[in-house]
C-alpha cells in the first residue's frame, strides 16, 4: 500500500522537472507517468464492486432509513410526497404495546438459540474429531437440516408439533404425558420455534468448529497427555482456549443470522398466538406487509433497529479482535 501512494508534492516536482529540462528523455518520463495510469486502472477495477455495493447495499439502506423517517400512508407511498417526520416512527414503535414483548422475545430467541447451537455444535465437533467407522457419513447426515430449504423444515416442524395430529403429541401420549399445545399456547410457542431454530443452526456450528479443531496441532494434546492431563482438562486447557477465535466468529455469525430469523417463525406460528412468539423480524414484516393497510414507516423503523443491533455486535467483535491481535 505504502509504496503505491505518491507523496503529495510529486505532481509539482514533476512540473518543475519538466520545466527545467527542455527535452526530457522519454524513458524516465514514462516511468514517472506509470503510477498515475496504474491508479486509473485501480479505480477501474474498483468501479464494478463500488457500483454493486452502492446499488445493492447503500441505496436500499438509504431507502430504508428514509422510509423510517417519513410518514408514509398508502397515498404518499404511491405519490412519493411523504412528509419528513424525524423520529416519529421510532417513537410510535417504542410506544407500541408489542415493543417490550418483541424485544424480550428477540433477546431470548437469540441468546437461547446461540447457546444451544454452540454447545451442541461444539460437543458434536469434538465427538467427530475421534475418527471412527462411519464418522464421515454420520457427520454428513448432521448437515441435512442445513441443506433443506427453510420452507420445508419449518413446515415439517409445524406438522410435527400440531396439537391435534402432530407426531410429537402422539409420542407424548404413548408415554402417558398430556399433549402440549406447542404452537397454539402462548407459553409454548416461543419455545417451539427456538427448538426448531436450534435444530437448523447446529450443523453450521458443527462444520465451523470442526474445521477449527483440525487446526489445533495434535502435538499439544500429546504434550498435555504426557503431563498427565485428563480428557476434561485437555478440553478446557487446550481445545477451548485455542478454539477461541473460531468460536468468536461462529458466535458472531450465528448472532447476526439468528437476529434476523424470520421464515421459521412466520411459517410455524406467524408470531402468534397474539404476539407470543413475535420477534423484531416478524414484527417488522407484520407492520409492512402483514396487513391490508401497510405501515411502511414503522416497519422500516423496526428493521433499522435490527440492523443497528447487528452492527453494534459486529463492532464489538472487531474491537475484541483488534485487542487480541495487539496483545
Amino acid at each position, binding site marked *: 500500500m505504502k509504496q503505491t*501512494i505518491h507523496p*503529495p508534492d510529486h505532481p509539482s516536482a514533476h512540473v518543475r522537472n519538466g520545466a527545467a529540462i527542455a527535452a526530457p528523455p522519454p524513458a524516465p518520463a514514462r516511468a514517472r507517468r506509470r503510477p498515475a495510469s496504474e491508479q486509473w486502472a485501480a*479505480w477501474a477495477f*474498483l*468501479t464494478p464492486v*463500488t*457500483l454493486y*455495493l*452502492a*446499488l445493492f447495499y*447503500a*441505496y436500499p439502506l438509504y431507502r430504508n432509513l428514509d422510509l423510517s423517517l417519513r410518514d408514509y*400512508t*398508502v*397515498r404518499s*407511498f*404511491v*405519490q*412519493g410526497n411523504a412528509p419528513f417526520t424525524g423520529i416519529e416512527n421510532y417513537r410510535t414503535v417504542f410506544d407500541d*404495546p408489542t415493543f417490550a414483548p418483541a424485544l424480550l422475545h428477540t433477546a431470548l430467541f437469540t441468546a437461547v438459540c446461540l447457546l444451544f447451537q454452540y454447545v451442541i455444535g461444539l460437543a458434536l465437533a469434538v465427538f467427530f474429531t475421534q475418527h471412527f467407522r462411519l464418522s464421515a457419513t454420520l457427520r454428513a447426515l448432521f448437515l441435512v437440516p442445513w441443506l433443506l430449504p427453510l420452507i420445508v423444515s419449518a413446515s415439517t416442524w*409445524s406438522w410435527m408439533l*400440531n*396439537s*391435534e*395430529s402432530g407426531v410429537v403429541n402422539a409420542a407424548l401420549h404413548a408415554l402417558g404425558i398430556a399433549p402440549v*399445545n406447542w*404452537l*397454539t*399456547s*402462548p407459553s409454548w410457542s416461543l419455545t417451539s420455534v427456538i427448538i426448531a431454530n436450534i435444530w437448523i443452526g447446529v450443523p453450521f456450528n458443527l462444520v465451523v468448529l470442526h474445521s477449527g479443531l483440525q487446526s489445533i496441532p495434535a502435538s499439544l494434546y500429546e504434550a498435555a497427555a504426557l503431563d498427565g492431563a485428563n480428557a476434561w482438562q485437555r478440553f478446557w486447557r487446550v481445545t477451548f482456549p485455542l478454539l477461541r477465535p473460531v468460536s468468536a466468529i461462529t458466535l458472531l455469525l450465528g448472532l447476526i443470522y439468528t437476529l434476523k430469523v424470520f421464515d421459521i417463525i412466520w411459517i410455524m*406460528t*406467524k*408470531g*402468534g*398466538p*397474539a*404476539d*407470543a412468539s413475535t420477534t423484531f423480524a416478524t414484527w417488522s414484516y407484520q407492520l409492512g*406487509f*402483514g*396487513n*391490508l*393497510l*401497510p405501515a411502511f414507516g414503522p416497519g422500516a423503523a423496526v428493521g433499522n433497529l435490527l440492523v443497528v443491533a447487528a452492527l453494534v455486535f459486529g463492532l464489538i467483535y472487531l474491537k475484541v479482535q483488534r485487542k487480541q491481535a495487539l496483545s
Partner: protein
Amino acid sequence: MHSSSRRRLTAVALSTVVAVTGAACSSGAGSTDTKGSDSGTYTLWDPYPQFAKGSAWVKLLDACGAEAGVKIKRTGYDTSDLANKALLAAQQDNSADILIVDNPVVSTLAEAGVLTTTDDNKLDTSKVDPNLLAAGQSDGKTYGTPIGANTLALYYNKKILKEAGVDVASVKDWTSLTAALAKVKAAGKKGITFSAIGTEEGSFQFLPWFWGAGAQLTELDSAQAVAALSLWKDWLKEGYAPNSVINNTQTTSWQEFAGGDYAFAENGTWQLANAKKAGFEYGVLPIPGADGGSAAAPTGGEFVTLPTQGDTGRYATSQKLATCLTSTQNLYDTDTTLSYVAPTGEVQAQQVAANAELKPWVEAVKAAKGRTSDDLGTRYPKISEQLWKAVQSALSGAKSPKDALTSAQAAVK
C-alpha cells in the same frame, strides 16, 4: 495520506450513487414510453395463479382481447402479494391496465389514488347486487365491479351427524349448534373446525359469528362481541373444536374436515369442488345467528378495477375489456370455473337453475356483508388486525374474551 485516498474513494462512491439513481430514474421513464408506443398490448393482473395457459380463464381473456382488437398480457399473482405489487407498480407509474383484486383491498388502493372511479371509467355497475358492490365503494364513489362473490357457510358430514343422532334441521341458532356439537363429541367424533389464524383469514372466519351476535366493527368490546368470542372459546374449552384452529388456515381447516372425523367445518364456496372429492356425503348450512336466522357472513371475491394511467387514452379500451369480462355470459362461465356465486341476480338465477346445490350459497351471498362496508374503508384493516389478535389471545388462553376485546378496541382508537 490515508485520509486523502479515502476521500477520493468517497467521492467516487458518491458519484456512482448519483449516476445509478439517475439511470434508475431515466429507465423508469423509458419503460412507460415503451408501454405508450406499444398500445396494442394491455396488461392484466389477477390473483388466480392456479390458472395456467390453456385454462378457461386465460381463453376468456384472449377472447375479450380479440373482441377489443388488442392483446392481453396477463400475470397471475398470489392474493396476498397482489396489493403490495399493485402499490409498488403505481409508485413506479407502471400500473396494469386492468387489476383484479380481493375486495377488501379495493378501499386501500382507492385511498392510495391508484384506482379510477366508475364515474371516470364508465363501467356499468347497475346490475350488481348492492351489498356486494358496497365492498368497492368509499366516500360515495365506486371503484370497480365484482367479478364474483363467495362467502362462508357450514359444511357438515351427514354420516357423522346421523351416527350421533343429530337432526340437522334442529340446528337453528348457537344453542342448538352447541348441543349438536356436544352430541357429536359424546359419540366419539370431533365437533367443528374453522380457521382462527393470526391473519386476515382469521377475522374473515370470525365475522359471521361476530355479526351473527349483532356486534358492530366500530365497537369491538360490545357485549355481543364478547358473546361471539366466548362461543368459540367455550367450544375449545369443551373440546368441541380442536386447539389447532388457532394456527389453521382455511385450507388446513378444510383438510381436517376432509379427513372425515369432523361433523362441521366453516368454509367457503370455493371448497365445493373439493367437497365432492372428499368421499363422504356432505351438506351445507348457513351459519346461524345467535338467536336464530342466518348470520351475515363477510363477502369474499374479487373486483375488476381499472388503475389510473398516465396515458388516459387507454381507459376506453380497458373499459371495453372489463365490460367483456363481466358480461352476463362470461360472468357465468368465470364464476363456474372459480366456484363462485355471480354478483348479479340474473346470473345467480342461471347458476341455481343449472346446479340446485348452489341455492344455499346464493342465499348466503345475498345476506353477506362487505368487510369494508358501512364506510369503514381503510379503517377496516386496522380493526381487523386487532380483531384477529383478540381472537388469538382469547382462544390461546392469554386473556379472557372480554379483556382481549377491550384491549383490541383500545388499540383501534
